[in-house]
């Protein structure tokens, strides 16, 4: 049995700014651009917006991220719903969840959900943007981390990946197959930053960041913003844009307790979030046409595939060809825009934006023929938080 909210709400507008090393603007400017583009895409007017949900990215941690003042920056005078949200990479899904529930119950009609980030500075490195450089040193036991030389999210995900790799005999070449596959998709994505094709040899030759991760196992860091506008299915039908109907929503947040009683690195919240979303949508893993998965690292994709029941434990890599750079190789329909590894890193809005594009059938060269059920994931912390969204071009 599917849920009564299934197909009753939709994403009716999508705004994607220029992405990557785009300098000279702050996060508010990018957010303004994305919202403007989304309103235009939906066929709405500025004053139609009566909901605004805000998610800052890395700049939020640096103190210069978007927040509630975005309302006044954009002169939004009709808001009936407003919040600044953060469950890290799961936030984008969560914003759409709460927006959908709000419009379904009449708390608002058109809710803009926006992610914006501008951590890259001319002459600075992506690692500096995300490694915590410049932040005040930790105190107490947290101060042991830099004392041991632990830095950044790369380390914690590399630890997670190593445990999985040793458990199932997964190799670096296997991780490379994920990376090369996604790059092949990015070649056909005009929004993508990295559009040069890759080979497995390129993958192996890319420098080590933290073994088992090469540079090409790690996502990009991007300046830019994405906005989605959520409304009811009924309203969406009257708009000129083609809606992506929301069939399923779910969250799962296992946290990350460092204790023998809790397995952390080889599990994620996707199993709980996915089960909830599948049930709401009335579909199962066998019905999914396209996956848009949060891919901060290559390993995250394999983890997510298995936790959504799309492959048995340790067998996600079996969905990928031995050599994805071979033009004859059939690629899995996973991260069809190149993902965070190759297109752009907008936290959970990377998978959702490509999910909306595919559900609407507007993917151009990379459009997947069968696109009735699109499964999108968001993931935050070190596999601590998770959000799921199931989209469809069909209302039911």
């Amino acid at each position, binding site marked *: 049995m599917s849920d009564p909210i299934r197909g009753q709400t939709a994403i009716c507008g999508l705004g994607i700014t220029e992405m990557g090393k785009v300098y000279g603007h702050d996060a508010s400017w990018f957010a303004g651009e994305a919202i403007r583009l989304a309103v235009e895409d939906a066929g709405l007017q500025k004053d139609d917006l009566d909901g605004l949900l805000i998610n800052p990215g890395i700049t939020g941690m640096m103190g210069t991220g978007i927040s509630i003042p975005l309302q006044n920056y954009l002169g939004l005078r009709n808001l009936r719903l407003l919040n600044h949200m953060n469950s890290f990479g799961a936030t984008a899904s969560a914003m759409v969840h709460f927006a959908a529930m709000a419009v379904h119950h009449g708390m608002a009609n058109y809710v803009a959900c926006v992610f914006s980030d501008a951590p890259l500075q001319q002459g600075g490195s992506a690692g500096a943007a995300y490694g915590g450089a410049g932040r005040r040193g*930790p105190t107490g036991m947290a101060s042991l981390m830099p004392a041991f030389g632990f830095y950044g999210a790369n380390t914690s995900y590399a630890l997670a990946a190593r445990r999985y790799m040793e458990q199932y005999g997964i190799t670096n070449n296997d991780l490379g197959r994920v990376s090369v596959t996604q790059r092949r998709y990015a070649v056909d994505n005009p929004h993508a930053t990295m559009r040069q094709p890759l080979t497995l040899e390129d993958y192996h030759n890319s420098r080590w960041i933290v073994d088992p991760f090469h540079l090409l196992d790690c996502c990009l860091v991007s300046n830019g913003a994405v906005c989605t506008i959520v409304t009811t299915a009924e309203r969406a039908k009257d708009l000129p844009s083609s809606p992506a109907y929301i069939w399923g929503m779910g969250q799962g947040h296992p946290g990350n307790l460092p204790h023998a009683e809790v397995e952390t690195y080889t599990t994620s919240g996707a199993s709980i979030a996915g089960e909830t979303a599948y049930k709401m949508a009335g579909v199962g893993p066998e019905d999914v046409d396209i996956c848009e998965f949060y891919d901060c690292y290559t390993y995250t994709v394999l983890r997510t595939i298995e936790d959504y029941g799309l492959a048995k434990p340790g067998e996600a890599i079996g969905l990928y060809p031995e050599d994805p750079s071979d033009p004859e190789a059939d690629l899995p329909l996973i991260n069809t825009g190149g993902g965070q590894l190759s297109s752009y890193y907008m936290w959970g809005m990377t998978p959702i934006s490509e999910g909306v594009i595919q559900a609407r059938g507007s993917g151009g060269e990379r459009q997947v023929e069968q696109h009735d059920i699109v499964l999108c994931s968001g993931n935050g912390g070190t596999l601590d938080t998770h959000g799921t969204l199931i989209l469809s071009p069909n209302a039911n």
Partner: protein
Amino acid sequence: MAYDKPLPNPDEQTQPFFDALQNHKLLLQYFPSADHYQFPFSDRCYKDWSTDWEWRESTGSGEVYSWVRMHQLYHPSWQAEIPYTLAVVQLDEGPRMNTNLVNVEPDDIVVGMRVQVLFDDVTDEFTLPKFEPA
């Protein structure tokens, strides 16, 4: 050459932990009501929310939960060490802690291998609890 890597920065609550390291003892918080050892420091047990606890000395024995080799330079003081080995060690008492794995070649490290704490007196004021094969 003087030790130039980042040093711990104890606060009031964790000072006894860092003091004990200097005496080559690894302390864990023990919460009697839940019979639970906890690390890193918290003023509350996450199992039953009790705030009654005591310091207890760990055996310092455990196993490698996972490990990596750090190649990226985030702080200039690590230049000569790169690549170095970072690990998460699951202590026999239950808690997992982040640490350095030393006195072992990377090719010999596997998840699950037995390890024992090694107290590295990096300066006159600070000792770091690293681990080596048991």
